[in-house]
């Protein structure tokens, strides 16, 4: 009996073992670019750390990575006997293709982006994590499919701005999550300006239609861009946006109670 290479991608098993000590995997999605997924992911990881949780942030936006920049991470990750050790910044273990590419463009055709994602997941030694936050790329291609199939218990939050363009794409993502049996933690409105229209339409209607919680409506906050410029997660966590995110995710974070430490293999 002969097994050929198509059945033998050993990285799949490596990824399962890498994530065996991670309690929750949370995908931060939107489908559309520019709605603030990366900033939400980074701030959420920082908030989770401040709540006493062990947290990792995986930048799955291979073409346009920004997590390393948001945390001020640079340089190749250290290599340990157990694999690549993600740098810890602001208490968060951060892994991104940009730690390798260092700002170079990443023009990938075909399966290239997915290959990089699989390689990073297979090689990264996260240790024990309460939560791995995954900053998802825009679009609903290979990377989304790979990550929603990563584990049976993968969860997702869908971030959207209140406008029709953002919510129409978020609608598609919610449909895909529902069809794929992925637990949707809820919808998170972002860059909401406070008008009655912003508050009553968009994210709220999406949450109602898909019968998932509306986690919150994060305000449009000028101070976020200043904090991002600093490349320092602490500055981001001091913004009104981050305080609102903390409130929006408080129930989810409380549910992520840490159990007894487990040995890492």
């Amino acid at each position: 009996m002969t097994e050929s290479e198509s059945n033998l991608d050993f990285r799949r098993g490596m990824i399962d073992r890498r994530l065996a000590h991670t309690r929750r995997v949370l995908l931060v999605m939107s489908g559309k670019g520019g709605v603030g997924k990366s900033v939400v992911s980074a701030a959420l990881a920082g908030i989770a750390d401040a709540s006493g949780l062990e947290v990792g942030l995986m930048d799955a936006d291979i073409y346009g990575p920004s997590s390393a920049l948001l945390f001020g991470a640079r340089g190749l990750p250290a290599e340990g006997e157990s694999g690549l050790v993600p740098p810890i910044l602001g208490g968060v273990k951060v892994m991104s293709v940009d730690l390798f590419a260092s700002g170079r463009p990443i023009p990938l055709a075909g399966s290239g982006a997915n290959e990089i994602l699989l390689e990073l997941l297979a090689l990264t030694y996260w240790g024990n994590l309460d939560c791995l936050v995954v900053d998802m790329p825009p679009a609903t291609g290979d990377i989304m499919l790979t990550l929603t199939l990563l584990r049976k218990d993968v969860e997702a939050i869908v971030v959207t701005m209140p406008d029709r363009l953002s919510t129409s794409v978020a609608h598609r993502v919610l449909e895909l999550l529902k069809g794929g049996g992925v637990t949707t933690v809820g919808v998170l409105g972002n860059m909401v300006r406070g008008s009655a229209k912003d508050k009553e339409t968009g994210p709220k209607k999406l949450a109602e239609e898909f019968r998932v919680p509306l986690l919150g409506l994060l305000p449009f906050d000028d101070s976020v861009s200043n904090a991002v410029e600093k490349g320092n997660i602490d500055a981001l966590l001091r913004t009104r946006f981050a305080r609102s995110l903390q409130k929006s995710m408080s129930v989810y974070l409380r549910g992520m109670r840490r159990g007894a430490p487990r040995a890492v293999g």
Partner: protein
Amino acid sequence: MHELSLVQGIISAVGETASEKGGRVRSVKIGVGELAQFDIRLVRGLLNDLKKGTSLEGARITVEPEKSKVKCLSCGRIWNFQELAGPISSDEREMMHFLPELLNSCSRCPNCSKSYFEIEEGRSVRIIEMVLDD
């Protein structure tokens, strides 16, 4: 030394497949792609050390180098790592050592100078084939 993790991953995958199919491992063929620039002797040595007490002990293990094959999606030229249009730095070699696809970030097609190409073969270490006794 992430080669160690990869070799452990290979040994686990072979063991899991053998146990799933219910057969003994007769042989395994491993390819070492040139883009990741692994030392093939190191891969052989790790396999030799780590196979003890696993389903690979007693199996015939072949480790062979694999040349890269890169297809330019602009002009159609098929080329390999040895034909790069320009030199690449030690930093660039190091990033490719971990993520071979980042060849796209540091090189261009030697024929048309576009950076729109796809790696078809020779990226990193892989299991080419394993044979189980029926």
